[in-house]
């Protein structure tokens, strides 16, 4: 465990503000804070950077989600940065996420002593990020029509769509590449080609596992719980309920708006932690707090937010929370692209090399021997 940890914010007016520190007797000076900030800016990347200042070893964590904030740790003389990397990144992530939600609820000593961390993004969260970057969502739509497309052509298309020359195709493509939705490869000597490997579907699933578990462990809420879920997914006519598989033409359709909401919920680190915990069974706020290692006050805030988004539901008498809907984003093989590829070859829009490579990539990802 580091000898000391502190959270610093660069405020536009006041300068460096030390928002939290552990131990509270820790003394810092302006030079140290400046150098830590400088090292972090020099690296121009998220996560951790190491600095040695006046013979002391510091590690600072930053994230583009929290501009101007740093979680810094002072390492002991025997501590090695590389060995502590995952632990420091995890605690940095957790501390900043908690600071954003409720700075007063953050107890640095408890977090550090318990070794609580927030892990990196899950596959589901990486998929959710696509819908939170408008140009990425646009690119995905285009790839759903094309399957295979030259990167240069895609770039021109995107610039036309957003009516701006400033749009950066690499940046827009990043969430798609990181989540494995597309793959970019050189086909031939110079032709950078984009392949759609997976398609995604964001929706609210019924919380089946949690409903079944409630019948076993909390029979007092079971029938009421089932009733709430049924009312949401298949209410008696004339209400239509929830059906995300209906074809949608209207871009302002509530289902599309809801998909964005689902993405936002899944990509919010604290909401995802609480949601994931409730996927298995109904729990009290205290139980969620114990399982997620989040302070109970923050768990309550997250639960209220989930309740407002029709994700969680509360059973007041039993003091239990359960999922009303289970937001999910899943990937699937885009089989519907195959006829498009056939047409593109016959019309010489793509080379046979590109088509062959596409089939190889699909087989690698979706074949029997893929992971």
């Amino acid at each position, binding site marked *: 465990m580091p000898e000391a940890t502190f959270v610093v914010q660069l405020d536009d007016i006041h300068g460096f503000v030390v928002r939290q520190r552990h131990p509270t007797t820790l003394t810092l*000076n302006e030079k140290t804070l400046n150098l830590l900030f400088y090292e972090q800016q020099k690296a121009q990347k998220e996560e951790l950077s190491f600095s040695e200042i006046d013979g002391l070893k510091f590690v600072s964590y930053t994230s583009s989600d929290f501009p101007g904030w740093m979680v810094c740790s002072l390492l002991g003389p025997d501590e090695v940065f590389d060995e502590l990397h995952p632990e420091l990144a995890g605690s940095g992530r957790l501390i900043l996420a908690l600071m954003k939600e409720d700075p007063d609820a953050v107890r640095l000593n408890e977090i550090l002593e318990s070794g609580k961390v927030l892990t990196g993004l899950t596959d589901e969260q990486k998929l959710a990020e696509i819908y939170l970057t408008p140009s990425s969502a646009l690119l995905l739509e285009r790839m759903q029509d094309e399957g295979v497309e030259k990167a240069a052509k895609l770039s021109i298309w995107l610039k036309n769509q957003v009516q701006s020359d400033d749009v950066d195709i690499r940046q827009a493509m990043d969430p798609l590449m990181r989540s494995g939705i597309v793959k970019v490869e050189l086909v031939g000597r110079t032709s950078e080609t984009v392949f759609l490997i997976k398609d995604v579907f964001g929706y609210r699933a019924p919380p089946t596992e949690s409903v079944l578990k409630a019948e076993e462990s909390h029979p007092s809420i079971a029938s009421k719980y089932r009733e709430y879920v049924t009312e949401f997914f298949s209410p008696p006519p004339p209400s239509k309920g929830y059906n995300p598989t209906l074809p949608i033409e209207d871009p302002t359709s509530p289902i599309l708006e809801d998909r964005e909401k689902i993405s936002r919920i899944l990509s919010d680190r604290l909401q995802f932690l609480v949601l994931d915990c409730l996927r298995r069974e109904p729990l009290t706020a205290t139980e969620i707090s114990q399982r997620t290692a989040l302070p109970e006050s923050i768990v309550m805030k997250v639960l209220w937010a989930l309740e407002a988004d029709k994700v969680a539901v509360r059973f007041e008498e039993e003091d239990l929370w359960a999922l009303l809907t289970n937001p999910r984003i899943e990937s699937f093989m885009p089989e519907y692209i195959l006829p498009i590829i056939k047409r593109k070859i016959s019309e010489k829009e793509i080379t046979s090399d590109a088509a062959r490579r596409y089939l190889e990539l699909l087989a690698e990802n979706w074949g029997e021997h893929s992971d």
Partner: protein
Amino acid sequence: MLLAGTSNSSQRIGVNTVIRGVYILGDQGSMIYSKEYARSESKDTLVEFLMNLAEFLKTVDLQEKTEYMNAAVSRIFYARREPFTFMFVADKADDATQIEEKMGQMVEFFMKNFANLAMANQPLDGFDDKVDEIAVTMIKVAILGFSGVGKTTILHLLRGEILPLVPNPTIGVSIKTLPEEISNVKIVFWDVAGQLRFSILWAKMIANAQVVVIVTDSTLENVLKSKKLVSLVQEEVPDAKVIGIANKQDLPTALTPQRVGQILGIPTYELVAIDISYRNRLISIIRRAILEGKTEAKAA
């Protein structure tokens, strides 16, 4: 500056209050008046939240008191006078009593002079000046220039401090306030390190400055180089008042302030920062820049 602390609360340089936004909402949740003193990336979300909060406050009896709620590191102060809701957004670490007093002043002034106009949907001419007078308690002045031109010496001169015998290059940024206030406003100076390695910080360090002072050593080489700084400032803080300082006028190689001003394209003033007799003149220049900056912002 030492940021030692034994409490768990925030420690920061200076203790002055900064009101970051002033909002007045009407009966139908409409925004009657708003002013932001610091740029915010999440302005739309904040305004939406304030409108919802105002709606909720209609159901609560605040008894003419100012109350507040915390939102992450910010604190939202609010008061109600039928049919208006008044709100300040400040920092959680700010002095709540001081802000409550300011809220009282603003509410009283508004209700006495502008409530009827607002209800008749008439323009609130003159209210903006009063809001500035009440809400602006601190002004950020950034001092920018390449290494060795005398930025830190200027800060020592402004603060009436004795110059150190050995120059000590600034690391990152050094933040100091002026001992005296100008028009009841505290001036906080950001002395930004001029070494090239710190140039990656310049844009961040001048953010939300109301005045930027570009310091040159009055040599042709340095003045020509400093033109880049003028462009940077105009791009990053387009609303800031920018002035130039032609320092080291006691040296034989110094260009005249007029020539420096011509090259930089900004109003420029002469200075010998190691000469204490320039102190009052420099304070006047800063004071004028602040006032001109306010006037220009209003005209815009």
